[in-house]
């Protein structure tokens, strides 16, 4: 899953975003007064297929009140159509409050996400080789107009996700089209109007999906709101439906001004007994997009009546220390299952020693500081592509023996070994953001003191526009790119193939090894319980043998909660505030 804000995708992000525990190293301890904080980490996914509604009461929860959510520096989704949602921000709000899907996540006792049923009565029943999944839709779920959610509407909603042309930003283009039978040949119900599509069928309360290839993660994919119902026919016609989609969760959309504000009010037709994980404690949600971070920080730290029932989805790094000492439990850190990487061009930098030299020449701590991050808090050292806690992740694994840190001497040795002293690196940076400029200065200094030559090209468009465009003339000259990637669900299949398979969408390293591609195919077909470990093995193997991508950091988010917000916590599945379980203390 991509982060919504393009700037946050660049190595130096203006906002504090994700990570797990990890100390810094080097000379950094002088004058330190900060208290250690515990991170909400994600440690793989557990599942509970039998959980029944209503959701377990939150201790001490009371009803009523209005909660204001301040979202700094992110304009929010362009469309509220569930099929179109593929951003951390939009999905975390809509999936928790307004739009239900086949399955969902619940925050478990230990803070870990648990996959539980939502509109389906269980987590789906696959056939033996995961090529056909059947979900039985519960009969007591309702729309905001009181009508029941039918299996036909769910099937229709799922079918919509195959229309990559109508929903170019939607996740369906990746998963529905990638896995559903005939998905590649079917352009979707709006683009391919007259074509019948029979891989998705419904019978009574059952919805059956046939797969092109084994898809054991269908239950996780079912937790995306794109795998939920849509009203039949004209009622869900895009793009109009995206401005005011019919809600079926505990809240409905009262008013939405794109890039500004989203107001949600209680949906009185929602039946608590039909939903195993959502609550309806709060009367009203006001989500304010595209706020100024400095302003939000002031509001949240002021403790005035406005801030008492407010939530901020980020905090400026300059205010972290103050917030950490003043807010205590109300500052929540949450891993967001994301990794920042540098991607050396595999077709140009062919020597693994040069790639490793780059990893040793990258001044991690300094880049984080210059980029406005809090080292050890919002950015922690990374060892491989799979984020910490992901099922199968080999903890403690180090591709080069021990944690790679900035070590120009080692980098020089590696370069000498490769016979490539003075190797010229060509990369781009986003010069409009002063933070990105500061970050680039650090990278250049680090690389140069390790014996590289650096040509840094300033650009004024999102670096992704250049990295992902094979015909761009600047892109053709680059031999070092980057990508920040977040998992869509806690499985290696959402991390490794998009970044490292020969045809991966975000494979900016242009890494392609038939052996690895074949192995990825093979793992996708393994029995479910073996997959996690297999992905972990592959993750380690790729890093050890090829080192095609330099993971620079795992990322963490910080959320700030007002005094009267009950149950301040994060949602580990998405790396967002845990909207499902909040209440206002009366």
């Amino acid at each position, binding site marked *: 899953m991509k982060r919504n804000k393009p700037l946050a995708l660049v190595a130096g992000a203006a906002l504090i975003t994700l990570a797990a525990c990890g100390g810094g190293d080097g000379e*950094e301890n002088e004058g330190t*007064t900060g208290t250690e904080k515990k991170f909400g980490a994600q440690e793989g996914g557990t599942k509970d297929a039998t959980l029944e509604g209503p959701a377990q009461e939150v201790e001490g929860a009371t009803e009523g009140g209005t909660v204001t959510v301040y979202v700094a520096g992110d304009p929010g989704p362009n469309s509220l159509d569930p099929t179109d949602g593929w951003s951390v921000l939009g999905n975390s709000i809509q999936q928790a409050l307004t739009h239900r899907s086949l399955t969902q996540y619940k925050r478990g006792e230990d803070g870990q996400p648990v996959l539980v049923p939502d509109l389906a009565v269980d987590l789906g029943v696959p056939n033996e080789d995961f090529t056909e999944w059947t979900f039985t839709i519960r009969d007591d779920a309702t729309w905001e107009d009181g009508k029941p959610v039918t299996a036909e509407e769910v099937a229709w909603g799922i079918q919509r996700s195959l229309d990559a042309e109508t929903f170019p930003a939607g996740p369906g283009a990746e998963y529905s089209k990638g896995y559903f039978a005939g998905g590649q040949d079917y352009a979707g119900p709006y683009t391919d109007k007259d074509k019948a599509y029979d891989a998705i069928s419904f019978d009574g309360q059952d919805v059956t999906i046939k797969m092109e290839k084994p898809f054991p993660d269908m239950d996780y994919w079912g937790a995306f709101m794109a795998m939920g119902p849509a009203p039949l026919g004209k009622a869900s016609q895009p793009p109009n439906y995206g401005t005011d989609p019919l809600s079926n969760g505990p809240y409905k959309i009262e008013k939405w001004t794109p890039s500004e504000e989203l107001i949600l009010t209680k949906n009185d037709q929602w039946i608590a007994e039909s939903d195993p994980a959502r609550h309806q404690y709060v009367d009203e949600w006001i989500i304010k997009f595209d706020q100024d971070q400095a302003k939000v920080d002031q509001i949240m730290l002021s403790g005035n009546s406005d801030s008492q029932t407010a939530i901020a989805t980020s905090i400026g790094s300059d205010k972290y220390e103050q917030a950490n000492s003043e807010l205590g439990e109300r500052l929540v850190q949450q891993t967001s299952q994301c990794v920042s990487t540098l991607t050396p061009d595999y077709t140009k930098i062919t020597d693994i020693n040069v790639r490793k030299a780059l990893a040793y020449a990258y001044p991690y701590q300094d880049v984080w*500081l210059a980029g406005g991050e809090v080292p050890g808090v919002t950015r922690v050292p990374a060892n491989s592509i799979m984020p910490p806690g992901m099922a199968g992740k080999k903890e403690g694994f180090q591709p080069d023996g021990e944690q790679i840190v900035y070590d120009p001497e080692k980098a020089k040795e590696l370069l000498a070994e490769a016979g490539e002293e003075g190797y010229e690196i060509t990369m781009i940076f986003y010069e409009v953001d002063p933070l990105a400029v500061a970050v680039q200065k650090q990278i250049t200094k680090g690389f140069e003191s390790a014996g590289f030559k650096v040509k840094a090209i300033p650009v*004024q468009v999102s670096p992704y526009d250049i990295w992902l465009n094979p015909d761009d003339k600047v892109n053709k000259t680059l031999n070092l790119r980057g990508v920040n990637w977040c998992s869509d669900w806690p499985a290696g299949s959402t991390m490794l193939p998009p970044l490292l398979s020969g045809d991966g969408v975000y494979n900016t390293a242009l890494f392609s090894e038939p052996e690895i591609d074949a192995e990825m195919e093979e793992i996708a077909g393994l029995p479910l319980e073996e997959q996690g470990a297999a992905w972990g093995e592959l993750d380690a193997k790729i890093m050890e043998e090829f080192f095609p991508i330099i993971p620079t950091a795992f990322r963490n988010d910080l959320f700030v909660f007002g005094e009267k917000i009950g149950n301040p916590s994060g949602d580990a599945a998405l790396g967002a505030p845990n909207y499902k379980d909040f209440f206002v203390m009366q």
Partner: protein
Amino acid sequence: MSQPTAPETLGSLTDETPIDPNSKKAKAITGRSPMQIALGRLMRDKIAVVCAIVILFFIIVAVFAPWINKFFGVDTETVFPSQYLDILGGGMPLEGPPNNGFDPDHPFGIAPQTADDNLAYWVEGCRTSLTIAALATLFASVLGVTIGLLAGFLGGIVDKVLSFFIDLFLTVPFLLAALTLAPILNERFNTADSYVTIQKFSLIGVLAVFGWMGTARLIRGEVLSLREREFVQAARVLGMPTSRVLLKELMPNLAAPIIISVSLMLPAFVAAEAGLAFLGIGVTSGASWGQTISKAVKYFEQYPLYLWEPLIGVVLLVLSLNLLGDAIRDALDPKTRR
């Protein structure tokens, strides 16, 4: 003209007490040119003198920037911030302000996040600011004076065409043009090694191209009234070529409006440069006060000194230039009653 025989001096129009032409005092006054009179007035204006000293200070800082930095032992080289900042204690400098006392190695302190030396960036920022403002003023005033002179003196179709262009440039919003031009230049030149220089000169170009119209209008108006005067007519009757009439007859009489418009253009450009840098266009790499201000805004509580330094630089320079400009105008204007 009601007093065609009166000499073209400014002294007779002031309210200074008339002096007996044969007295000793009068001897000292005789022979002073209008410029000398204006200068004398300027020297007596305390505000003008103070402003001039302040401006001189900034000019010295700008001209001798590298030596000043060397003297203090600071530079604008990138350093690794993790060696100088308290990583887990809020990212503030380990030595010097805001949490510790004066740090002799870094008299102005160091920046949070990047640990850049503030003094070095301040001095270099002053240089950037004055270089860009001075060059832009030079180009804009040459352009403005030329067009104003031609439009005013030649009249007719030339005047119509030139006035049209003056109006046209006045209608284009300056900020919008600057914002549009930045990505275009970037797209075209970002792989060139001289990108930084190109960026600087394009900024000077943008400032000049959108800054000459005021001067042009002012000069045109002056010329319109001057060209009907007898001395110009006489020069024409004598058969002087137009170029000589423009340069030898009109230009000296335009000195006052030109000096005034230049002295008011400078502070406007200093402010515009800082404003553009604050918005992230203009000078993006290298030192600039506006850029430092934009980085420092969020630290106004924890590290106010970081914000005050560039802010005081901009405010003091712009204020001094403006006040001096006003004083020059007053001094040159024979009608001012003081």
